[in-house]
């Protein structure tokens, strides 16, 4: 709390704010009418105004939409004039983003009207595949494209090798299961491979194994008194950037904001405390904070409980008798102290983290004094690391100590929503399919060294980046036919050169995409996809501000290409072609997606896209199926508003009934213990062996509590003196905005960056030692590869590290994204220096603190 600051000026009730703003607009309108053209000294202006008709005439209308420029998934409105998108703003009906649109939402205009979007299906005419092989794409008809794909799938079915079919998913809507799940299964393959583990699965690991919640959290920031962020950059990167941007000016009046991150992020620029930690040492800081919270008696007793006699026995260095402590809504706090905390003092953590004892104490005490309105906000940085799973637990566990979990001013899970699922495919799986789906998946999930314990299940999660190795090694088998959609693994996965080789090896690859990307370069067929925001039927759900919204995607502009919707129209069209060839199971399955209003079965791809969306959202818009949240009179009204909002968040509902093994918030994770033991049992071995196989150092009981692990960083310090710090741009639309001129013209909106350039930010002291000056061309090399970019000398970079933003370095994708399309990259792709390493317990690719690098003049 900041006692000396004046309270924020504006009304804090955001609903009221909407009203007051409207009345302000009205007042301005009246004033405007009075002054317009009233001067007499500006004849020129009068003439112009007369020529263009009355001012204020609205040539277009605002139509509802959804933005997937990042995974905030805000509800939007698009200003459409004669079928043409002109402007973008937040949808005022959303309680999650409150009518707000962040900077990158506007850039969707340069995506939908990117001249380099493929407008028609194309096929490769150069049979040789490789980065140095121009595919020589030529336009073809949809018919030819679909016939080719259907023939390839039928060949697999005829040879009883349907498991050699693979579907790769990138950015999706919740219509995904049509293409990703149902079609893959009915064809007969286990290989639906999502992008999830190159996103942030390790970020969900901590919350799941402490509070039984596998998902991203929302934060009650307006009621918080302390906000401690770990590698999260809510004002720039992810998630709910629009919402947090809207309220942050008020948040900083009330809460102390502390940011743990090796480089000065956009959010750190406005924070009270910047803790520029050594990469990979976040767990050390989290444990030191936990140590202080317990030894200084700052834990929140109504949540955690207390010693029976009220006397604090958490004395540094001393073991505590478990029988003396009575826990209320938590499990294992004393065990955690004894196993992993008792020696973890600020003095211990200071040299490890590179922070001062003073700052560690100040932050820990400030955080503890703010309990229970004290958020510990875990981002991707500290956890998408080789040994990041326990950092994820350690950072998140602080919320448990201060009672911020599920609490006012704390960290919240998802509100209930009521969308349904698509019809079951079970009746449409024939013998070939039944056998096909039983094969091991190509990403090798669930093997001893790759547990991917999504929601407690061995092999429950995807290991996206490892699929490349599965394909290259033909282990468990080769992939013969593959389809990818809105993914670009040959750019977005660490060590993408493996993907180039893996994709070149697939005999037949089709890519559903907007742009001819690096992934497309290896494809045999390109299918022109719709843009999610303007041209697609679909929906996504998202949380923020204590609400969940379900926001619709709708076709609202005129298509100038032969675009088809990735998740619905294209699978339908493939199903038709398969039916023509005697295999009609998929089409018959899709014909069970009846229009809930008329009971009619879809007769074509367009009806299918619409009916399937109406079907799964019926509980939201059909008054007869109403279950909660916003209520609509029917489908038409839902379409017009474009977003459904949940009921408000039920604070503290989950206290004592969390979906953990004990129902409590687990500091000693019985849930993780069970998951690890079942994974070990599946491989007839011990948990210690699992720890060893997954590159963790913990043995025994320590594996079940948040604990410190020395970071695993590739590269010898002498040869590679710097640690690479990857971060995201506030202008990144998931790595898809690099063909937009606004991206380059405004790149300096990222602190430390330059316009029309791709820079590595180096501390001036380090640069001085290397003889590198601002603007020098440099080569950054890691044990797995290298990239070339320019040097930026910047005090916001921790000495000993080099910070570089992800997003540039495309060698395909478009005329701006690449310096020479297909030949030469513009800037450097961070993934070229990030080795393919994994946080194996969650299956995540490690992006942060995973490699050392050297810097040389290029």
């Amino acid at each position, binding site marked *: 709390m900041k006692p000396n*600051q004046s309270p924020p000026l504006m009304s804090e009730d955001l609903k009221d704010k909407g009203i007051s703003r409207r009345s*302000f*607009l009205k007042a*301005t*309108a009246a004033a*405007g009418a009075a*002054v*317009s053209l*009233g*001067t007499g*000294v500006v004849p020129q*202006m009068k003439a*112009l*105004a007369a020529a263009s008709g009355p*001012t*204020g005439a609205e*040539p277009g209308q605002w139509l509802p939409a959804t933005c997937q420029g990042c995974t905030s998934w805000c509800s939007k409105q698009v200003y459409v004039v004669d079928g*043409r998108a*002109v*402007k973008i703003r937040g949808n005022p009906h959303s309680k999650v983003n409150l009518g*707000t649109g*962040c*900077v990158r*939402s506007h850039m969707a205009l340069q995506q939908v*009207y990117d001249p*380099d979007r*493929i*407008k028609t299906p*194309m096929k490769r005419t150069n049979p040789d595949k490789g980065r140095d092989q121009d595919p020589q*794409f*030529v*336009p073809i008809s949809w018919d030819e494209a679909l016939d080719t794909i259907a023939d390839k799938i039928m060949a697999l079915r005829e040879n009883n090798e349907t498991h050699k079919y693979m579907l790769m998913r990138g950015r999706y809507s919740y219509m995904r299961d049509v293409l990703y799940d149902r079609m893959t299964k009915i064809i007969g393959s286990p290989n639906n491979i999502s992008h999830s583990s190159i996103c942030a699965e390790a970020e969900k690991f901590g919350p799941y194994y402490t509070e039984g919640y596998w998902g991203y959290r929302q934060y009650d920031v307006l009621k918080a008194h302390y906000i401690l962020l770990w590698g999260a950059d809510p*004002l*720039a990167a992810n998630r709910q950037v*629009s919402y947090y*941007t809207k309220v*942050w*000016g*008020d948040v900083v*009046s009330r809460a102390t904001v502390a940011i743990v991150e090796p480089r*000065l992020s*956009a959010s*750190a*620029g*406005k924070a*009270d*405390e*910047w803790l520029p930690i050594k990469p990979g040492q976040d767990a050390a800081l989290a444990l030191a904070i936990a140590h202080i919270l317990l030894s200084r008696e700052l834990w929140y007793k109504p949540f955690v409980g207390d010693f029976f006699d009220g006397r604090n026995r958490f004395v540094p260095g001393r073991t505590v008798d478990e029988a003396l402590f009575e826990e209320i809504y938590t499990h294992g706090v004393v065990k955690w102290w004894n196993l992993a905390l008792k020696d973890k003092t600020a003095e211990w953590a200071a040299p490890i983290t590179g922070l001062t004892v003073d700052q560690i104490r100040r932050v820990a005490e400030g955080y503890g004094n703010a309990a229970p309105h004290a958020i510990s906000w875990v981002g991707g940085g500290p956890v998408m690391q080789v040994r990041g799973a326990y950092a994820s637990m350690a950072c998140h566990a602080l919320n448990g100590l201060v009672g911020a979990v599920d609490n006012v001013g704390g960290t919240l899970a998802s509100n209930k929503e009521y969308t349904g699922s698509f019809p079951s495919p079970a009746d449409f799986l024939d013998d070939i399919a039944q056998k096909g789906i039983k094969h091991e998946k190509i990403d090798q999930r669930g093997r001893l060294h790759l547990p991917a314990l999504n929601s407690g299940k061995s092999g429950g999660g995807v290991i996206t980046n490892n699929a490349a190795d599965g394909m290259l090694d033909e282990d468990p088998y080769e992939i013969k036919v593959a389809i990818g959609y809105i993914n670009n693994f040959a750019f977005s996965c660490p060590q993408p050169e493996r993907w180039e080789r893996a994709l070149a090896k697939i005999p037949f690859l089709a890519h559903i995409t907007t742009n*001819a990307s690096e992934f497309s370069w290896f494809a045999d067929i390109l299918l022109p996809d719709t843009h999610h925001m303007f041209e697609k039927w679909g929906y996504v759900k998202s949380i923020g501000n204590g609400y969940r919204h379900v926001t619709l995607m709708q076709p609202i502009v005129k298509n*100038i290409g032969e675009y088809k919707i990735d998740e619905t129209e294209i699978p339908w069209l493939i199903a038709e072609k398969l039916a023509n060839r005697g295999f009609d199971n998929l089409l018959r399955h899709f014909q069970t997606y009846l229009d809930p209003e008329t009971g009619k079965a879809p007769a074509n791809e367009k009806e299918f896209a619409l009916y399937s969306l109406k079907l799964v959202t019926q509980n939201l818009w059909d008054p007869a199926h109403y279950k909660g949240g916003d209520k609509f009179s029917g489908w038409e009204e839902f379409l017009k508003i474009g977003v459904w909002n949940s009921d408000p968040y039920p604070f503290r509902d989950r206290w004592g009934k969390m979906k953990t093994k004990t129902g409590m918030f687990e500091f000693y994770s019985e849930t993780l213990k069970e998951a690890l033991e079942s994974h070990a049992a599946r491989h007839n071995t011990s948990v210690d062996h699992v720890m060893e196989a997954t590159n963790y150092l913990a043995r025994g009981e320590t594996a079940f509590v948040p604990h410190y692990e020395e970071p695993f960083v590739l590269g010898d310090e002498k040869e590679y003196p710097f640690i690479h710090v990857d971060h995201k741009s506030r202008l990144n639309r998931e790595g898809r905005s690099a063909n937009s001129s*606004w991206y380059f013209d*405004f790149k*300096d*909106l990222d*602190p*430390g960056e330059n316009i029309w350039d791709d820079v590595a930010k180096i501390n001036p002291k380090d640069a001085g030692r290397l003889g590198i000056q601002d603007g020098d061309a440099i080569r950054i090399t890691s044990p797995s590869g290298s990239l070339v970019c320019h040097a930026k000398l*910047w005090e*916001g*970079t*921790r000495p000993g590290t080099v910070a570089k933003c992800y997003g540039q370095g495309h060698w395909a994708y478009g005329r701006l994204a690449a310096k020479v399309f297909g030949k030469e990259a513009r800037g450097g792709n961070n993934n070229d220096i990030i080795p393919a390493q994994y946080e194996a317990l969650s299956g995540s690719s490690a992006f942060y603190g995973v490699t050392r690098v050297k810097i040389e003049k290029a």
Partner: protein
Amino acid sequence: MPRYAMVIDRQRCVGCGACSIACRNENNVTEGVYWSHKITETSGVFPNVRFHYIPTLCNHCTHAPCVMGCPTRAMYKIDNGITMHDPKKCIGCRYCMINCPYGVIYFNWKDSHPFWKDRQELLPGGTLSPAEEVRAVNGRGTPYYNPQANSTTPDIRPRGVVEKCTFCEHRVRAGSLPYCVEACPADARIFGDLNDPESVVNQLLGKYKPYRLKEALGTDPAVFYIRDFTAANYPKTKGAV
């Protein structure tokens, strides 16, 4: 008669630049020209470092040096205080740019939107050239051309003249807020009438100590700033000898 002014609350501002991209969008501003812009600075030495951001735009000065120095009266004031520019009268002498102490006036060395004039296709037969894309969607200058910008000043400015922020005069006269104000996701821009003692602008100017850029020059800017970009607290100290 109103005297329009803008208050920029730097504490609410997060430095995202949505104002600047929204402005490009609303006013069909070409690449490299920033009607809405910023001054940024990284201050301090590691680890005591912060990033600072000041949004900038035309200050619509009462004593506007750009207007006073314009030989053809192409740059002129209208009675609500907005500084306007008429490209038809502009001879491209750029005196206004030299006279403006804020560097917010731009000269069009080239035809606007050069990117969209390119006639080259990336993948012949499968993609369109930028020029074809504009034509195919029935745009003008760009595919996402905004026709509303056309009501008071030419929607797209020609080569050889200057251009700058108009406070979205075309919107204000129609009773809408300037687009940067409407689009600001942080509600950091507050627009209103200085002559109305009850306006929100005046409420804020009374509540906080406002400051303007280069006030000592006597230009009397209509863009005011309140509060700080970094509202950071620090432990109490008296320092040391």
